[in-house]
Protein backbone atom coordinates (compact mmCIF):
# COMPACT_ATOMS: atom_id res chain seq x y z
CA UNK A 1 0.00 0.00 0.00
CA UNK A 2 2.66 2.46 1.06
CA UNK A 3 4.51 2.12 -2.22
CA UNK A 4 1.42 3.42 -4.03
CA UNK A 5 1.36 6.53 -1.85
CA UNK A 6 5.10 7.01 -2.27
CA UNK A 7 4.88 6.58 -6.00
CA UNK A 8 2.06 9.12 -6.18
CA UNK A 9 4.09 11.61 -4.13
CA UNK A 10 7.13 11.12 -6.34
CA UNK A 11 5.05 11.58 -9.49
CA UNK A 12 3.80 14.88 -8.04
CA UNK A 13 7.40 15.93 -7.36
CA UNK A 14 8.32 14.98 -10.91
CA UNK A 15 5.43 17.05 -12.31
CA UNK A 16 6.43 19.99 -10.12
CA UNK A 17 10.01 19.70 -11.36
CA UNK A 18 8.75 19.74 -14.95
CA UNK A 19 6.75 22.93 -14.38
CA UNK A 20 9.78 24.60 -12.76
CA UNK A 21 12.34 23.63 -15.41
CA UNK A 22 12.40 27.09 -16.97
CA UNK A 23 12.72 29.03 -13.75
CA UNK A 24 15.41 26.90 -12.12
CA UNK A 25 16.65 24.40 -14.65
CA UNK A 26 19.38 22.80 -12.56
CA UNK A 27 17.21 22.35 -9.49
CA UNK A 28 14.40 21.00 -11.67
CA UNK A 29 16.78 18.56 -13.35
CA UNK A 30 18.06 17.34 -9.98
CA UNK A 31 14.55 16.93 -8.61
CA UNK A 32 13.43 15.14 -11.77
CA UNK A 33 16.31 12.69 -11.76
CA UNK A 34 15.87 12.01 -8.03
CA UNK A 35 12.16 11.41 -8.32
CA UNK A 36 12.65 9.04 -11.27
CA UNK A 37 15.27 7.11 -9.27
CA UNK A 38 12.90 7.15 -6.29
CA UNK A 39 10.06 5.80 -8.42
CA UNK A 40 12.28 3.03 -9.68
CA UNK A 41 13.25 2.05 -6.14
CA UNK A 42 9.68 2.20 -4.85
CA UNK A 43 8.33 0.05 -7.68
CA UNK A 44 11.25 -2.39 -7.61
CA UNK A 45 12.61 -2.40 -4.04
CA UNK A 46 14.88 -5.37 -4.64
CA UNK A 47 17.03 -3.26 -7.00
CA UNK A 48 18.07 -1.14 -4.02
CA UNK A 49 19.38 -4.22 -2.26
CA UNK A 50 21.22 -5.38 -5.36
CA UNK A 51 22.69 -1.92 -5.82
CA UNK A 52 23.71 -1.73 -2.16
CA UNK A 53 25.45 -5.08 -2.32
CA UNK A 54 27.31 -4.12 -5.47
CA UNK A 55 28.79 -1.02 -3.77
CA UNK A 56 29.47 -2.82 -0.49
CA UNK A 57 26.66 -1.47 1.70
CA UNK A 58 24.60 -3.97 3.66
CA UNK A 59 21.01 -3.14 2.81
CA UNK A 60 19.24 -1.05 0.21
CA UNK A 61 17.60 1.02 2.95
CA UNK A 62 21.05 1.92 4.31
CA UNK A 63 22.24 2.99 0.89
CA UNK A 64 19.22 5.23 0.49
CA UNK A 65 19.76 6.69 3.96
CA UNK A 66 23.41 7.53 3.19
CA UNK A 67 22.47 9.18 -0.09
CA UNK A 68 19.73 11.11 1.70
CA UNK A 69 22.12 12.41 4.36
CA UNK A 70 24.61 13.49 1.69
CA UNK A 71 21.88 15.32 -0.22
CA UNK A 72 20.56 17.05 2.89
CA UNK A 73 24.06 18.26 3.78
CA UNK A 74 24.54 19.62 0.27
CA UNK A 75 21.18 21.36 0.50
CA UNK A 76 22.03 22.90 3.88
CA UNK A 77 25.32 24.21 2.51
CA UNK A 78 23.51 25.66 -0.47
CA UNK A 79 20.96 27.42 1.74
CA UNK A 80 23.75 28.70 3.98
CA UNK A 81 25.61 30.23 1.03
CA UNK A 82 22.44 31.81 -0.22
CA UNK A 83 21.62 33.26 3.20
CA UNK A 84 25.06 34.75 3.38
CA UNK A 85 24.71 36.40 0.02
CA UNK A 86 21.26 37.66 0.99
CA UNK A 87 22.68 39.06 4.20
CA UNK A 88 25.35 41.00 2.34
CA UNK A 89 22.69 42.41 0.07
CA UNK A 90 20.60 43.40 3.07
CA UNK A 91 23.61 45.11 4.62
CA UNK A 92 24.29 47.09 1.46
CA UNK A 93 20.64 48.09 1.19
CA UNK A 94 20.39 49.09 4.85
CA UNK A 95 23.62 51.08 4.60
CA UNK A 96 22.46 52.91 1.50
CA UNK A 97 19.15 53.78 3.14
CA UNK A 98 20.94 54.93 6.31
CA UNK A 99 23.28 57.17 4.30
CA UNK A 100 20.50 58.61 2.15
CA UNK A 101 18.29 59.36 5.13
CA UNK A 102 21.07 60.74 7.36
CA UNK A 103 19.93 63.63 9.53
CA UNK A 104 22.05 66.65 10.37
CA UNK A 105 21.92 68.41 13.72
CA UNK A 106 20.78 71.99 14.13
CA UNK A 107 23.74 74.30 13.56
CA UNK A 108 25.40 75.14 16.84
CA UNK A 109 26.11 78.68 18.03
CA UNK A 110 29.69 79.08 16.98
CA UNK A 111 31.77 81.82 15.44
CA UNK A 112 32.21 80.31 12.02
CA UNK A 113 35.20 78.03 11.77
CA UNK A 114 37.05 79.52 14.69
CA UNK A 115 37.41 76.70 17.17
CA UNK A 116 38.86 78.93 19.88
CA UNK A 117 35.83 79.44 22.07
Amino acid at each position, binding site marked *: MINLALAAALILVLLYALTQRRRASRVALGMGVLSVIGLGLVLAPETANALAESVGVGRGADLILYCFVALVLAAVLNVHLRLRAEHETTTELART*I*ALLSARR*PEPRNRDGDDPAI
Partner: protein
Amino acid sequence: MKTGSVWVVVPAFDEASVIGTTVRSLLTRFDNIVVVDDKSRDATAEVALAAGAHVCRHPVNLGQGAALQTGFDYALQQGAQIIVTFDADGQHRVQDASAMVAALRRSAVDIVLASRFLGATVGMPRSRRFMLGLGTWYTRLTTGLALTDTHNGLRAMTRETVSRLRLRQNRMAHASEILALVAEFGLRYVEHPVTVVYTSYSRAKGQRFTGAFRVLVDLFVRRMYRS
Protein backbone atom coordinates in the same frame (compact mmCIF):
# COMPACT_ATOMS: atom_id res chain seq x y z
CA MET B 1 43.59 72.23 18.00
CA LYS B 2 41.66 72.53 14.77
CA THR B 3 39.30 69.65 14.44
CA GLY B 4 37.30 70.60 11.37
CA SER B 5 38.23 67.54 9.34
CA VAL B 6 37.98 65.08 12.21
CA TRP B 7 34.87 62.92 12.40
CA VAL B 8 33.94 60.78 15.37
CA VAL B 9 31.95 57.65 14.53
CA VAL B 10 29.80 56.30 17.36
CA PRO B 11 27.94 53.03 16.72
CA ALA B 12 24.92 52.78 19.00
CA PHE B 13 22.23 50.27 19.81
CA ASP B 14 19.67 51.02 22.53
CA GLU B 15 21.84 53.70 24.14
CA ALA B 16 19.22 56.43 24.60
CA SER B 17 20.05 56.84 28.31
CA VAL B 18 23.74 57.61 27.71
CA ILE B 19 24.16 58.73 24.10
CA GLY B 20 23.24 62.35 24.86
CA THR B 21 25.98 62.67 27.45
CA THR B 22 28.49 60.92 25.20
CA VAL B 23 27.70 63.20 22.23
CA ARG B 24 27.77 66.38 24.32
CA SER B 25 31.11 65.49 25.87
CA LEU B 26 32.54 64.68 22.42
CA LEU B 27 31.33 68.06 21.13
CA THR B 28 33.54 69.84 23.67
CA ARG B 29 36.58 68.70 21.66
CA PHE B 30 35.26 67.65 18.25
CA ASP B 31 33.01 69.40 15.76
CA ASN B 32 31.71 66.44 13.82
CA ILE B 33 30.02 63.46 15.41
CA VAL B 34 28.06 60.82 13.55
CA VAL B 35 26.00 58.38 15.56
CA VAL B 36 25.02 55.27 13.64
CA ASP B 37 21.83 53.99 15.17
CA ASP B 38 21.63 50.26 14.52
CA LYS B 39 17.83 50.09 14.60
CA SER B 40 17.55 50.79 18.31
CA ARG B 41 14.25 50.06 19.99
CA ASP B 42 14.53 53.23 22.05
CA ALA B 43 15.00 56.92 21.21
CA THR B 44 18.77 56.71 20.61
CA ALA B 45 18.54 58.49 17.24
CA GLU B 46 16.42 61.37 18.49
CA VAL B 47 18.53 61.89 21.61
CA ALA B 48 21.75 61.85 19.59
CA LEU B 49 20.37 64.31 17.04
CA ALA B 50 19.13 66.67 19.74
CA ALA B 51 22.53 66.51 21.42
CA GLY B 52 24.14 67.71 18.20
CA ALA B 53 25.28 64.61 16.33
CA HIS B 54 24.63 63.65 12.74
CA VAL B 55 22.54 60.49 12.73
CA CYS B 56 22.47 57.60 10.27
CA ARG B 57 19.86 55.00 11.05
CA HIS B 58 19.93 51.40 9.85
CA PRO B 59 16.42 50.27 8.84
CA VAL B 60 17.28 46.80 10.20
CA ASN B 61 19.58 45.71 13.01
CA LEU B 62 22.88 44.60 11.51
CA GLY B 63 25.42 44.69 14.30
CA GLN B 64 28.22 46.94 15.53
CA GLY B 65 30.65 46.15 12.72
CA ALA B 66 28.08 47.12 10.11
CA ALA B 67 27.28 50.31 12.02
CA LEU B 68 30.97 51.27 12.07
CA GLN B 69 31.27 50.74 8.32
CA THR B 70 28.17 52.88 7.71
CA GLY B 71 29.72 55.59 9.89
CA PHE B 72 32.99 55.34 7.93
CA ASP B 73 31.12 55.74 4.64
CA TYR B 74 29.25 58.77 5.97
CA ALA B 75 32.35 60.44 7.40
CA LEU B 76 34.27 59.85 4.16
CA GLN B 77 31.37 61.36 2.19
CA GLN B 78 31.56 64.42 4.45
CA GLY B 79 35.24 64.82 3.64
CA ALA B 80 36.73 63.57 6.90
CA GLN B 81 40.53 63.56 7.00
CA ILE B 82 40.74 61.76 10.33
CA ILE B 83 38.18 59.33 11.68
CA VAL B 84 37.85 58.35 15.32
CA THR B 85 35.76 55.40 16.53
CA PHE B 86 34.26 55.85 19.97
CA ASP B 87 31.92 53.67 22.04
CA ALA B 88 28.48 55.01 22.87
CA ASP B 89 28.30 53.68 26.42
CA GLY B 90 30.59 56.22 28.06
CA GLN B 91 33.54 53.97 28.82
CA HIS B 92 35.96 56.04 26.75
CA ARG B 93 37.26 59.47 27.72
CA VAL B 94 37.07 62.33 25.25
CA GLN B 95 40.49 63.67 26.23
CA ASP B 96 41.99 60.30 25.27
CA ALA B 97 40.35 60.53 21.86
CA SER B 98 41.71 64.00 21.20
CA ALA B 99 45.17 62.99 22.44
CA MET B 100 45.05 60.10 19.96
CA VAL B 101 44.14 62.46 17.13
CA ALA B 102 47.09 64.63 18.10
CA ALA B 103 49.32 61.55 18.12
CA LEU B 104 48.04 60.56 14.68
CA ARG B 105 48.85 64.03 13.34
CA ARG B 106 52.28 64.09 14.97
CA SER B 107 53.50 60.74 13.83
CA ALA B 108 53.47 59.18 10.40
CA VAL B 109 51.27 56.25 11.34
CA ASP B 110 48.06 55.12 9.67
CA ILE B 111 46.15 54.14 12.78
CA VAL B 112 46.36 54.89 16.51
CA LEU B 113 44.95 52.13 18.71
CA ALA B 114 43.87 52.73 22.27
CA SER B 115 45.26 50.49 24.98
CA ARG B 116 43.76 50.31 28.43
CA PHE B 117 46.65 48.05 29.48
CA LEU B 118 49.25 50.69 28.69
CA GLY B 119 46.94 53.14 30.43
CA ALA B 120 44.44 52.42 33.15
CA THR B 121 41.12 50.83 33.85
CA VAL B 122 38.52 51.71 36.40
CA GLY B 123 36.33 48.95 37.76
CA MET B 124 37.21 46.30 35.21
CA PRO B 125 35.80 42.90 36.13
CA ARG B 126 38.28 40.01 36.27
CA SER B 127 36.37 38.01 33.67
CA ARG B 128 36.77 40.91 31.29
CA ARG B 129 40.52 41.01 31.81
CA PHE B 130 40.68 37.29 31.12
CA MET B 131 38.66 37.59 27.91
CA LEU B 132 40.79 40.49 26.67
CA GLY B 133 43.89 38.44 27.40
CA LEU B 134 42.53 35.72 25.15
CA GLY B 135 41.81 38.32 22.48
CA THR B 136 45.38 39.62 22.61
CA TRP B 137 46.73 36.10 22.37
CA TYR B 138 44.45 35.28 19.44
CA THR B 139 45.54 38.41 17.59
CA ARG B 140 49.21 37.64 18.08
CA LEU B 141 48.64 34.11 16.86
CA THR B 142 46.66 35.01 13.75
CA THR B 143 48.15 38.34 12.66
CA GLY B 144 51.55 38.49 14.35
CA LEU B 145 50.69 41.92 15.79
CA ALA B 146 52.11 42.29 19.29
CA LEU B 147 49.43 44.53 20.75
CA THR B 148 48.53 44.97 24.39
CA ASP B 149 44.81 45.63 23.90
CA THR B 150 43.14 44.20 20.83
CA HIS B 151 39.49 44.82 21.60
CA ASN B 152 39.25 48.48 22.31
CA GLY B 153 36.59 50.46 20.48
CA LEU B 154 38.64 53.65 20.56
CA ARG B 155 40.76 54.23 17.45
CA ALA B 156 41.98 57.13 15.33
CA MET B 157 42.66 56.55 11.64
CA THR B 158 43.61 58.57 8.61
CA ARG B 159 41.22 58.94 5.71
CA GLU B 160 43.42 56.68 3.56
CA THR B 161 43.30 53.93 6.18
CA VAL B 162 39.53 54.08 6.51
CA SER B 163 39.11 54.09 2.72
CA ARG B 164 40.97 50.81 2.55
CA LEU B 165 38.96 49.10 5.28
CA ARG B 166 35.83 47.34 4.19
CA LEU B 167 34.36 45.68 7.22
CA ARG B 168 32.48 42.56 6.34
CA GLN B 169 32.03 41.34 9.87
CA ASN B 170 28.66 42.80 10.70
CA ARG B 171 28.52 41.71 14.30
CA MET B 172 31.25 41.87 16.94
CA ALA B 173 34.19 40.28 15.12
CA HIS B 174 35.09 43.61 13.51
CA ALA B 175 37.76 44.47 16.10
CA SER B 176 39.74 41.40 15.06
CA GLU B 177 38.88 42.12 11.44
CA ILE B 178 40.34 45.64 11.60
CA LEU B 179 43.56 44.27 13.10
CA ALA B 180 43.71 41.53 10.47
CA LEU B 181 43.47 44.24 7.80
CA VAL B 182 46.14 46.30 9.57
CA ALA B 183 48.45 43.29 9.35
CA GLU B 184 47.43 42.42 5.80
CA PHE B 185 47.99 45.92 4.42
CA GLY B 186 51.10 46.44 6.50
CA LEU B 187 49.65 49.62 8.04
CA ARG B 188 51.78 51.61 10.44
CA TYR B 189 50.21 51.64 13.88
CA VAL B 190 50.94 52.84 17.37
CA GLU B 191 49.25 52.08 20.66
CA HIS B 192 48.19 54.93 22.87
CA PRO B 193 47.56 54.60 26.62
CA VAL B 194 43.97 55.39 27.59
CA THR B 195 41.70 54.99 30.56
CA VAL B 196 38.63 52.81 30.25
CA VAL B 197 35.94 53.35 32.83
CA TYR B 198 33.64 50.44 33.56
CA THR B 199 30.35 51.75 34.79
CA SER B 200 27.59 49.42 35.85
CA TYR B 201 25.89 50.45 32.62
CA SER B 202 28.81 49.50 30.38
CA ARG B 203 29.32 46.28 32.30
CA ALA B 204 25.71 45.30 31.71
CA LYS B 205 25.94 46.08 28.00
CA GLY B 206 29.37 44.56 27.52
CA GLN B 207 30.23 41.33 25.83
CA ARG B 208 29.72 38.00 27.48
CA PHE B 209 31.58 34.75 27.13
CA THR B 210 29.09 33.47 24.58
CA GLY B 211 29.72 36.63 22.59
CA ALA B 212 33.41 35.77 22.36
CA PHE B 213 32.55 32.31 21.15
CA ARG B 214 30.35 33.76 18.45
CA VAL B 215 33.18 36.07 17.39
CA LEU B 216 35.43 33.04 16.95
CA VAL B 217 32.81 31.33 14.80
CA ASP B 218 32.41 34.47 12.67
CA LEU B 219 36.15 34.75 12.18
CA PHE B 220 36.44 31.08 11.32
CA VAL B 221 33.69 31.34 8.71
CA ARG B 222 35.37 34.37 7.19
CA ARG B 223 38.64 32.49 6.96
CA MET B 224 36.93 29.65 5.16
CA TYR B 225 35.46 32.01 2.62
CA ARG B 226 38.72 33.77 1.99
CA SER B 227 40.77 30.69 1.37
